[in-house]
């Protein structure tokens, strides 16, 4: 069996090699595909903190993905139409600057995660799944009816937002940016998991009664995990919208929340690289099988079924020979 740290480095290296090869082979579309995988991975790394360490099966993480997307869309829309954004007594100019957009996306989704988490964490199990789903759907339907920002048609952003010192329209440069964000999120997960907070959160997933008995509040631990998780998924949303230069209500769809969970299960729940492997597989299947049939999800379903039935630790579990944490 292979040590998990080796797998982690191999996967990360793979994510660098493929786009670099594509660059030398002049295959820009492959770079875009890799960027898509990186961003889905980033969103799932966010979810994995809540789901994998905290045991919070959120079926509403599309809310944060979409909020990140709309944070980008709205700010960039006001910038490209030269209309200021009126927020009650405040008037804010739009912006095409990625750092500001990211910060906005992170703050907005963290705040939303705080409110959603505060209400949802009163419940557990299937009720938690349902209430997070309901919150996700609220955002979905709100975005559909919000005609100021395109409603159902969404918003197109004509030119990708800028980052100081980079030309983000060059695929490999934008990829580098997204890959760096992914590495940063992975680093956060890794640090968190080993920290006192991670120890307590991981115990709160397994035995909330134990955590209370040693004098800690399991709900507070989970709430904070949910906020960090939502913030990372929100950042992924902002970048994802920038990749497509388009944001629409589909970013809020519950299918997306479900896909993020599927990615994690395929790769390995709670495993550092689980979401990354899951996203890579997902995008690869989507591309190659999608070329043959519109029904490629069937095959994804088969893989998911096999993993759930025979390999509870996902791909990482198969490779390391260790079952994953139980959620």
């Amino acid at each position: 069996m292979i040590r998990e740290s080796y797998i982690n480095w191999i996967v990360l290296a793979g994510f660098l090699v493929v786009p670099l090869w594509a660059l030398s082979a002049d295959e820009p579309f492959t770079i875009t595909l890799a960027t898509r995988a990186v961003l889905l991975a980033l969103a799932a790394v966010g979810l994995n903190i809540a789901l994998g360490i905290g045991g919070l099966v959120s079926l509403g993480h599309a809310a944060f993905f979409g909020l990140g997307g709309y944070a980008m869309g709205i700010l960039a829309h006001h910038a490209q139409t030269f209309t200021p954004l009126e927020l009650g007594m405040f008037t804010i100019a739009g912006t095409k600057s990625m750092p500001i957009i990211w910060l906005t996306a992170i703050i907005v989704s963290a705040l939303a995660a705080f409110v959603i988490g505060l209400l949802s964490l009163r419940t557990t199990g299937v009720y938690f799944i349902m209430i997070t789903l309901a919150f996700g759907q609220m955002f979905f339907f709100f975005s559909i009816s919000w005609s100021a920002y395109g409603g159902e048609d969404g918003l197109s952003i004509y030119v990708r937002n800028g980052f100081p010192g980079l030309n983000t329209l060059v695929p490999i440069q934008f990829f580098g940016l997204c890959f760096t964000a992914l590495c940063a999120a992975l680093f956060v997960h890794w640090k968190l998991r080993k920290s006192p907070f991670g120890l307590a959160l991981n115990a709160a997933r397994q035995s909330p009664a134990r955590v209370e008995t040693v004098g800690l509040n399991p709900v507070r631990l989970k709430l904070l995990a949910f906020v960090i998780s939502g913030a990372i998924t929100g950042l992924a949303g902002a970048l994802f919208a920038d990749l497509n230069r388009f944001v629409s209500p589909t970013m809020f769809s519950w299918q997306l929340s479900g896909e993020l969970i599927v990615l994690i299960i395929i790769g390995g729940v709670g495993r550092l690289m689980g979401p990354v492997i899951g996203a890579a597989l997902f995008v690869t299947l989507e591309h190659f099988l999608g070329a043959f049939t519109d029904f490629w999800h069937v095959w994804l379903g088969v893989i998911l079924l096999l993993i759930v039935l025979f390999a509870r630790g996902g791909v990482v579990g198969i490779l390391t020979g260790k079952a994953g944490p139980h959620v």
Partner: protein
Amino acid sequence: MSEAVLETRNLHKSFGALKATDDVSIDLRPGEIHAIIGPNGAGKSTLIAQICGGLQPDAGSVHLSGRDVSGLSTAARAQAGLGRTFQISALAMEDTVLENALLGALGQSGRPWQFWRSAARRTDLLDRAMAALDRVGLLDDAEQVTANLSHGQRRQLEVAVALTLGPKAFVMDEPMAGLGTEGSKTMTTFLDGLREEAPILLVEHDMDAVFALADRISVLVYGRVIATGTVDEIRASKEVKEAYLGEEA
């Protein structure tokens, strides 16, 4: 009489028509082991839940070192100095033995909001956790995954986690449950020495252990304390024999 470390005053709890706790006033004095015995369904678990905070009493109060803790959450009561062990081990099964003990030390330190430091580098926590594991004889198994422990070792770990809290009073829910004769003996010896550190409120089914350990015994039947006294007094009590011991013997 020295002041009670842990005390319940006129606790009442009903579930519909069932009086699970009926005017229970017990106290735990420094240096003693106070055993609560009673037949199944006597309301022992309900009583413990009210003492430790899982369940709100309908009336009455719980006092720890003279302070009314009735309004506090389970976590706050633990911080105030209540060290509880569970009847069915409630450990983090996927974590190592050491991690479980570290969790206790972390709770005791009251500083779980550290995100950037490695828990394994918190030497204060590590020392505390190791010391507790050493005392229950689990030091050699520190790196084991808890799920791989034997039943008896899990009971020891339960006690070790409570030790890391350095509590003012222990509340132990059947620490001997499921232990063999040998394990029961070891645990009895261990608890015997523990009472000087902090008194123990002991809920236990194992009568040999109770009679060997307890300074005082309270007998709970249908939610009521029908007798409280020394081992000899309880053994001699006709009422207790009828209600409880007689049925078993």
